[in-house]
């Protein structure tokens, strides 16, 4: 995070809460304090469930089930070991495979489409974008019946490829929408200069435009990764033991053994860990990428 961009944002938020000298008053100050307090309360409330989950995952099952709940206990890694013992890794592998491939496909299909939309005339673009967006409105719960029948007919039930294909379609509309906004931010002069040199559209895309929008594309990819990683409805209905992803493992966990809070917390933590690590590494990229187009 560079100093200048960070100060930009903090200037923006200072504008929210700090009045210039002559507009200051007791009410303004009280209101500002109230807003700051509210913000912190919200932040703590939203972080707390995670803290509790992490704490619980290091407990023995007996410690998780005390009344009153215990804040101090002897931490243990038993729950993590149990989760791994129950065959968590193959599901993790499936999830990784599905997430990586579907994200690659989204980029392969979405980058040219977003590029074309950023160059096309406005009216047509709105219609095309509207079409792409509207495909997101299909309620998957209702669509699962036809999808199940199709998957059965092409023998893709309990096959990781079924999820790869569906997640590609699921993430494509938002990805196109976001990436188009990044393409729109590419300075006209850059494209014009390329065209003057006689570059064709594909060359222009690969050599001139893509390097400029790379952070935006990385941010989009990370968002697709997160959505693929957490999707569970398709996964639960179309896959089971062989091709199941992490959420399928978690559902099985909850339904088969009743509720073991500590073990479930450990499983939940393990399940989200890869994404958190990737996200942490890509954090600056994500923010820089997203702020490029200011998500138009």
């Amino acid at each position, binding site marked *: 995070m560079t100093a200048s*961009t*960070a100060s930009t*944002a903090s200037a*923006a*938020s200072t*504008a*929210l809460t*700090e*009045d210039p000298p002559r507009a200051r008053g007791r009410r303004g100050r009280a209101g500002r304090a109230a807003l700051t307090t509210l913000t*912190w309360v*919200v932040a703590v409330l*939203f972080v707390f*469930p995670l803290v*509790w*989950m992490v704490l619980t995952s290091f407990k023995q099952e007996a410690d998780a089930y005390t009344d009153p*709940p215990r804040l101090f206990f002897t931490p243990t890694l038993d729950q993590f070991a149990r989760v791994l013992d129950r065959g968590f890794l193959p599901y993790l592998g499936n999830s990784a495979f599905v997430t990586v491939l579907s994200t690659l496909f989204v980029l392969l*299909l979405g980058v*040219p489409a977003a*590029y*074309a939309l950023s*160059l*096309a*005339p406005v009216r047509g*673009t*709105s219609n095309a*974008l509207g079409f792409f*967006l*509207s*495909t997101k*409105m*299909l*309620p998957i719960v*209702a*669509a699962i*019946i*036809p999808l199940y029948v*199709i998957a059965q007919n092409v023998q893709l039930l309990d096959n990781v490829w079924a999820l790869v294909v569906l997640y590609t379609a699921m993430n494509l509309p*938002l990805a*196109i929408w976001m990436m188009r906004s990044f393409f729109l931010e590419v300075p006209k002069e850059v494209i*014009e200069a390329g*065209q*003057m040199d006689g570059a064709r559209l594909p060359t222009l895309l690969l050599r001139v435009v893509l390097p400029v929008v790379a952070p935006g594309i990385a941010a989009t990819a990370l968002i697709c990764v*997160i959505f693929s*990683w*957490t999707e*569970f*409805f398709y996964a639960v209905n179309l896959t089971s033991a062989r091709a199941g992803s*992490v959420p399928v493992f978690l559902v099985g966990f909850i339904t088969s053994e009743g509720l073991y809070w500590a073990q*479930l917390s450990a499983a*939940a933590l393990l*399940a989200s860990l890869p994404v958190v690590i990737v*996200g*942490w590494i890509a*954090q600056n990229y*994500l*923010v820089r990428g*997203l*702020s490029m187009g200011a*998500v*138009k």
Partner: protein
Amino acid sequence: MAVADTLARRVPPRRRPPRRRHRLVLLAYLAPAAVVLIGLLGYPLYQLVQMSFYDYGQEQVSGGAPVHWIGLDNYTALFGDPQFWSVLLQTVLFAAVCVVLTILVGLLLAFLAARLRPWVRTVLFIAALEAWAAPAVTGSTVWLFMFDANFGIVNEVLTSLGMAYFDGHSWTFGKLSAFGLVAAEVVWCSFPFVMVTLYAGLRGISPDVLEAAALDGASGRRTLVSIVIPMLRPALTVVTIQSIIWDMKVFGQIYIMTDGGGIAGRNLVLNVYAYQKAFASSQYGAGAAIGVVTVILLLLVTVVHLNITRRRGEEL
């Protein structure tokens, strides 16, 4: 053709690229994505609409029994069912509350993130990522655990603060408190996307603009209303429309946290209702009709929202 037009303005016409070929290339770029979406989302949608006009039950799904075209019967039955209308109302209200809260929380935390020291911001971001990356299955279960009547930390804290009423209080029993609990979880797992996007939007605002506003003596609120929010609007449009689409289609959280739609189905929303109709009572045609209603509703809301933003002078 934005590029062609700008070129036409600046260079002599003969340098303009052949328009027809240009357009064909653009179409070729759009086609793969469009084909995939039509095939994978358009086709099921078509089947869904078709199914909603048939009497489609268990015999038809598994036994291959002949299907009967019953026209609008599924819809008339649906519209004549008082439960449908209450579920519809619940869905819209629930989604509205979730969308508004998600945007508010995301906006507040985005402003907070912008003011934090880098390492505190990193902590906030990791927490947000964790909430975002936790599948709805576990998120819902963790929230249920925290609000558990006997072993939950929430009742414990409230009781120890002197509110004896909450000792053993069930949060999932009352209709409103069950909805509230689910809404809290939905907001919890959807605010990160909003926060990160809006934070990025905030960083896109030039400090010069804000400085100029401050020099002109604009108050904090005035700057917020006239500068910050308008400049965030494109980002706000994206997150609002996304949130509307997600929250109108909530399934997992309701299904898990209220055990399939609450006592006597009083916590149903359209998506869970469709699932129950189709799979629990094997009325696939009726379930499909509910699905179609959801799609139409979402289309309406999105079109209205986009028209409002467009009237403010922005394109999609």
